[in-house]
């Protein structure tokens, strides 16, 4: 499908009122609510909150036009700590609630904060349908691969064999890869980042906020209480280099230190395989193209990850422009009103109620 120009806005925040040019610049403080933050000490959520609070001023939006909607779980407490409008809703339903809000209020920047259990287990249906419809939302999915708030059961992203309170012999569930799932649902913006890499996190938030349509950002987040060190292999400076795959648009996909660099190529069967950089045939080298409309390569990239964080792609997998659901819904209402000469008057309502077949008594 090609991008169809319907004269619709192309930035995620294009229709949201901005601060006047001469207004004093916002600071992190403007986005910090008076509520005491109550995550466990050392929780990755703190870092994400701080990053979001310091990033939001950059958007230059009127803060009353920003809304955070969350579901249930540790991460879903997020809205309470931001001095914007917010709703802490019920388990799994935030994307549905946010869809109703975004569709009816073009002037709002709507964010969803969710976790792996909230988004992928109880709320899986709403997540895939928000992605399919391409509602103008930015979804931050904190993935700690465990149920934190309910005290440590395995989640839909926990690795197979994981021993938890509810899986004493090891989990027999196959985990979801949230990026693969989002791409399978034809998400128009799908990215992955990590709590500990503040610079990268903010870069991704910037791109996600600018995207018009559903932006799904998976954020690896450490839960020191119930799943400590889940991402240590890719956080550890020494190990990181051999495991983290930084996706750069227009660049080959590579991993490893300079002396031991591997490059991703397509083999004869079309599969993606790692080969030492020197042996990579230029015509076989995989060039990352997040702007490709066909999500196939982005999906393939999401699958190069091994079971134990052997190769973890980070960055933007896909970023394409498609018409958004809420713009489409509003366009239909507007077109119907324009065709009828503007918003309905009392006389229009009278005519509707009367209909075509009437009779008069008296």
């Amino acid at each position, binding site marked *: 499908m090609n991008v169809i120009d319907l004269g619709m806005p192309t930035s995620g925040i294009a229709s949201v*009122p901005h601060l006047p040019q001469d207004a004093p610049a916002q600071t992190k403080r403007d986005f910090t*609510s008076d*509520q005491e933050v109550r995550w466990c000490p050392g929780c990755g959520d703190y870092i994400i909150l701080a990053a979001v609070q310091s990033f939001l001023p950059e958007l230059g939006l*009127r803060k*009353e*036009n*920003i*809304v955070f*909607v969350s579901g*249930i779980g540790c991460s879903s407490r997020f*809205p*309470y700590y*931001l001095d914007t*409008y*917010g*709703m*802490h*809703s*019920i388990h799994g*339903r935030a994307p*549905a*609630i*946010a*869809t*109703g*809000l*975004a*569709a*009816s*209020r073009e*002037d*709002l920047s709507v964010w969803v904060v969710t976790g792996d259990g909230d988004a992928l287990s109880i709320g899986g*249906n*709403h997540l895939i*349908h928000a992605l399919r419809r391409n509602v103008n939302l930015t979804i931050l999915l904190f993935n700690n691969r465990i149920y934190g708030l309910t005290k440590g059961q395995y989640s839909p992203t926990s690795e197979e064999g994981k021993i938890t309170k509810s899986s004493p012999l090891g989990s027999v569930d196959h985990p979801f890869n949230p990026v693969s799932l989002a791409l399978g649902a034809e998400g128009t913006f799908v990215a992955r980042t990590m709590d500990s890499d503040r610079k990268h996190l903010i870069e991704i938030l910037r791109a996600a906020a600018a995207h018009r349509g559903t932006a799904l950002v998976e954020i690896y987040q450490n839960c020191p209480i119930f799943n400590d060190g889940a991402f240590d292999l890719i956080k550890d400076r020494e190990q990181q280099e051999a495991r983290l795959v930084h996706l750069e648009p227009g660049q080959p996909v590579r991993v490893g230190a300079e002396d031991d660099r591997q490059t991703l190529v397509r083999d004869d069967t079309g599969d993606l395989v790692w080969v030492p950089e020197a042996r990579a045939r230029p015509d076989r080298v995989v060039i990352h193209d997040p702007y490709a409309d066909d999500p196939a390569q982005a999906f393939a990239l999401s699958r190069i990850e091994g079971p134990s964080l052997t190769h973890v792609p980070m960055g933007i997998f896909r970023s394409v422009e498609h018409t958004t659901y809420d713009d489409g*819904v*509003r366009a239909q*209402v507007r*077109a*119907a*009103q324009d*065709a*009828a000469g503007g*918003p*309905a008057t*009392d*006389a*229009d*309502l*009278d005519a*509707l*109620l*009367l*209909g075509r*077949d*009437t*009779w*008069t*008594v*008296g």
Partner: protein
Amino acid sequence: MSSKTVKQLDRVVIRFAGDSGDGMQLTGDRFTSETATLGNDLSTLPNFPAEIRAPQGTLPGVSSFQLHFADHDVMTPGDAPDVLVAMNPAALKANLRDLPRGAVVIVDTDEFTKRNLAKVGYDSNPLEDGSLDSWHLHDVPLTSITVEALSEFTGLTRKEKERAKNMFALGLLSWLYNRPTDGTEAFLERKFGAKPEILAANLAALRAGWNYGETTEGFAVSYEVAPAAMPKGTYRNVTGNTALAYGMVAAAHRAGLPLVLGSYPITPASDILHTLSGLKRFGVTTIQAEDEIAGVGIALGASFGGAIGLTTTSGPGLALKAETIGLAVSLELPLVVVDVQRGGPSTGLPTKTEQSDLLQAMFGRNGESPVAVLAPRSPVDCFATAVEAVRIATTYRTPVIVLSDGYLANGSEPWQVPTTGELPDLTVEFATAPNATDEKGNPVFHAFQRDEATLARPWAVPGTPGLEHRIGGIEKADVTGNISYDPDNHDRMVRLRAAKIAGIADTIAPLAVDDPSGQAEVLVLGWGSTYGPIAAAVRAVRNTGARVATAHLRHLNPFPANTGEVLRSYRRVIVPEMNTGQLAMLLRARFLVDVRSHTAVRGLPFTTVELADVLVRALEDLS
């Protein structure tokens, strides 16, 4: 006009019955429109199978449409048909038991083949074996005459010609009861405008049916039913689902707010979604959600943003929406939830009517989560009930559950159409400025600082500067709305939410009792769609000189303030319900009055005779 004898009747009940593919609903609809235009009062009852097309010619595949019209006010679609139009043996067999001896039966003899008879277990042909001797039988080869009448239409296949037989039947009935057909002709032109040959064939079949009545000796008499004396005004015919959709649009218009519907298709509520999705011109946004839960979530999200959030469903869907309705209770945001009740439990009887979701609406959520509950009494009343639901939802910042049902949804009756100016002003005031100061004297916004009169909290929509706030399903501190786990605060909040809902009674009319003599000892109290059958039964009993009082509840939570007083002023209170006694249970619990239930769950409305009998027995009991 016919040269045959014309007889005057005061009322007629006709039932059109055929295979679900025979177009009986359409035929019934058109006959109803013709009847409405003549100024008769009327009431209709469609009855169709849950399967879209059950095997042809079988009993489960029978679809019917009953219409009661009269020169006086009509309360019900009628207990028993005076005329049955049976398009095949299955339709005859399925409906004959409802037909009093002496009633008219018009059958399509072409369909009474050996094979079709065998399909429904007729050993011999009832048209020939004398088993229909007690009825007035008109055997008409409907299919073959229709095909014959359309012989000029060489471009149409035999099948296509046969399909026009419902128009032939309509033409015949229109002649028989002197109904004008111009409305149907205009309707056919709209429907088949793009297919001129099909249009012409349908018009020709309609005319052929009319002419058949006029020229055939079998039909010696035609009938007239004079217009009913109805209050002056402009009327149209309307079904409950349409009236409900229009009521929501009208209420949103009077509130000056957009209407946002989140809905998942479900029988028998889907027509509300269909109707509203065609009304974008009125600022209506409809979102066909991925599931029932998303439907109500979308509505609630829109309410948070300052729209009128609406979700429509039937019983199984209400169960799925329960948690989100609980969230709306806790958030104290307006929300309208329409449950078009059907037979349950589980999938139950999807196309049949029942009133068995009352207790689900009242209590079907976790925790103490009171909501307002309303029920329309008739198809027309769905309009006013929707307007009332929006008034309560926006004034009290609460979910309101509207309990319609399958009978109201698909049934129709004449509606004296109101003008916009006659509708209540539902203007909503959003919060625009801080409503408190903090300890340092700075202006702040307290999201749960209540209005003294209504106990409603402010509705502060995103986009309002200075009122940024967070709400959620966790218990909130009274006034500030911040998270609070304090035991006393929770106790206070539970009681405040309950008091808010109870306080709605201050703004609703007292329960009106119809007791002409003022000396009745028996009160019959109903709610929802039993209004018509109860009114008809009460009328029948009063005609015998007996005294019976009647009252009908629209507000089920809270009840009108005088409800207990009314109940206590009668020696016997009868509560008929299409469930096993749900309102009776509420009344007994709430008012300690020994009300007597009369219940039935057959998927059909009560008959007048049945309810009249209940009243007569109650009167005898007391004498």
